[in-house]
């Protein structure tokens, strides 16, 4: 009799992933990187500039192929972009020819969902992001913060099990950034999604994530740190002694790559 219990594979698995670019000479960004991300986890990816954070995210989204190794989601290899993986970049990448409503509905319409369902989803997301009054505006008529809210809603419209965010709030001012962080946590609470959030801001990572993947400048090496603060994390947490102490420790590790 076989008593072995099959343990489900984590949602996302990096299996000996190597990412290299040919630009005259070969530049290896990641070498034999292995890592796993469990379902419903909010993982922040921290690391110095040029350590390959964005490349890791692009490969996870299926935009680029790893040179060697494999990235699997739900046991299947990721070989091209898919509606199962949402992506939000720092540059928003909204479609300037579509209104706010058209941008959010784009994925649903690509999937040929019934128009009533499309409009229901769009209405609900517009309410969450607080842009119902601007639904007919074009992206270039919106502020940076508003555009980023639309980009988030567009990525969430198809309810992807995995959402990748590449320094999404880096270009925003402090106040707008705080609002966007709250919005992201609200959306994460409503939708059962796993988040990979690339940032270079230690405080942002500590406020948002369950776990932090701290990458170093050494190709493909890093370590994980569990964030010890319980949810829901109230505003003002960042001023507490415990937070400041942890933040200082993380910052030192971040700066020294220890």
């Amino acid at each position, binding site marked *: 009799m076989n008593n072995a219990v099959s343990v489900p594979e984590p949602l996302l698995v990096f299996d000996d992933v190597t990412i290299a670019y040919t630009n005259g000479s070969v530049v290896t960004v990641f070498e034999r990187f292995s890592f796993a991300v469990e379902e419903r986890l909010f993982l922040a990816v921290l690391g110095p500039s040029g350590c390959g954070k964005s490349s890791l995210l692009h490969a996870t*989204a299926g935009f680029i192929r790893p040179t060697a190794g494999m990235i699997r989601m739900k046991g299947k290899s990721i070989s091209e972009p*898919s509606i199962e993986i949402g992506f939000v970049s720092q540059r928003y990448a909204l479609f300037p020819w579509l209104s706010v409503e058209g941008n959010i509905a784009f994925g649903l319409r690509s999937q040929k969902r019934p128009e009533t369902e499309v409009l229901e989803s769009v209405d609900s997301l517009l309410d969450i992001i607080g842009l119902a009054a601007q639904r007919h505006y074009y992206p270039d008529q919106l502020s940076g913060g508003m555009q980023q809210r639309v980009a988030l809603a567009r990525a969430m419209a198809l309810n992807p099990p995995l959402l990748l965010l590449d320094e999404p709030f880096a270009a925003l001012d402090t106040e707008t950034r705080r609002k966007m962080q709250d919005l992201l946590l609200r959306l994460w609470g409503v939708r059962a999604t796993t988040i990979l959030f690339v940032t270079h801001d230690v405080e942002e990572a500590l406020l948002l994530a369950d776990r932090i993947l701290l990458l170093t400048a050494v190709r493909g090496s890093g370590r994980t740190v569990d964030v010890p603060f319980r949810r829901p994390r109230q505003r003002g947490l960042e001023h507490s002694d415990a937070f400041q102490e942890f933040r200082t420790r993380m910052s030192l590790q971040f700066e020294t790559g220890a």
Partner: protein
Amino acid sequence: MDYHDLYSLRAIVRRVGKVCAPFLLVIGIWAMASRLSGINPALLPRPMEVANALKDLLVSGSLIWDLLWSLRRAALGLACGGALGLLVGTFTGRIGAFNWLLAPAFNGFRALPPVAIVPLVVVWAGLGEPAKVFITSWAAFFPVWLNTHAGVSSVDKMIIWAARSLGARRERLLFAVTFPAALAQILVGLRLAISSTLICVIVAEMTGAYVGLGYRLQTAYLVFRVDRMLACMVVLGAVGAFSDRLFNFVASRAFPWIALTHDRP
């Protein structure tokens, strides 16, 4: 009439004045030159004589007929050459093999002034309508091809990635993402194509036609009627300026987002 009416009336007068002033200046210098320079009036007629020639051509109905024929030929060329330029530009802009195979030859042909092909087309295809439509199509093709190619091949990869991660594939990626993203540049090509076809239709008609603005210009030249030649040129200038304004107007109404992201097409 209250203060606001007066203000809007002044604004209208100022706007009309801004549009008309450059023309009035040119006409004024022209009138002075023809009166004071001592040049033979047969060579440099006064503005009033040109206006009379224009009136005669309009009243006789020949100018309207010429204008309609020229516009028809230009529109046919723009439609054929523009459509082909759009199609080929999409292929060369998106598929490396097409670009590698076709772009060098097209770039070579593009370097030729469109009017340089007119004698060859007349020798090969005669003086009929197909030859004229071929010449105007040739003139329209290259600006549309080049700008479509450039627009389609330079769409921000982040936009394409975003669309693909939202499930867009093949036709949807092409029609709902690539074309709109390249549209501003495609419109620049169309705008250049309009002026290029107008130039070439006149040259083609001057080479051999029985109706058209180019034909009217040529016949005026043969009988040494400079006033009529200038009248035809005034009409041509007006058609060129009007078509450009009309194109801009239609484009800005049809694609209002372009004005937000780019300079006016």
